[in-house]
């Protein structure tokens, strides 16, 4: 398994995605009435939802993959089967957490 490149790729995606975070926060702080509605219109659109869904996955995967690196930094998990297990845990865990977050989001009123 060569998932270290996925760690980098999700890192780059999150890097670009901070523009969305900054846009959202600036719009919330803005005094002009339409600014926040524009963000909501974008994140509510199909494309916007796909992007935010992708962002959620990138964040969850990058976090779990990062925790995997912390485990290695601490000197554990270097055996072949342990490396495999950590990698699969990050991969599957990232997908599961992403879906879980979106189910909760829809359940508490993300559908507008």
């Amino acid at each position: 398994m060569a998932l270290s490149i996925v760690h980098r790729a999700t890192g780059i995606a999150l890097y670009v995605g901070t523009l969305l975070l900054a846009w959202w926060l600036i719009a919330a702080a803005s005094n002009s009435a339409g600014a926040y509605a524009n963000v909501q219109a974008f994140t509510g659109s199909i494309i916007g939802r796909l992007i935010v869904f992708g962002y959620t996955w990138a964040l969850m995967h990058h976090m779990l993959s990062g925790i995997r690196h912390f485990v290695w930094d601490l000197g554990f998990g270097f055996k072949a089967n342990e490396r495999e297990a950590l990698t699969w845990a990050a991969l599957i865990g990232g997908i599961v957490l992403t879906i879980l977050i979106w189910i909760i989001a829809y359940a508490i009123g993300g559908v507008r």
Partner: protein
Amino acid sequence: MSATDTPRRSMRTPLGRVRNLGAAHSGTSDFWRQRITGVAMTLLMIPVIVVVMMLLGSNQAGAKLILGSLPIAVIMLLFIIASAWHMKIGMQVIIEDYVHNEKLKLVSIMLNNFFSIAVALASTYAILKLASGV
């Protein structure tokens, strides 16, 4: 630098040439900060997700109220600072790994700094503005 330091015939010993050029005891600072910010964001992940969930479906007035409250503003500020720092270091590692043209590399690293700082300051400004209620 190296071309003039190491002429073909030098009286300096190999050890003399490299002495004082080695570890400046700051070489691991980026590595360490990458870990600090990574751990920080992992710890902040659940609070941040909760904040985003709270904001779902609320209009701007509601968002202003939520984001402007003190604990939430602090959570968001910590997360923004940690992520900007983390992504600046991470992107620099990627640039150093893949961009081999020296000038392009320096320009890329500079732009990376500009971008990360701009995102951090813009977001921080927004949070402070919300928290101060203006």
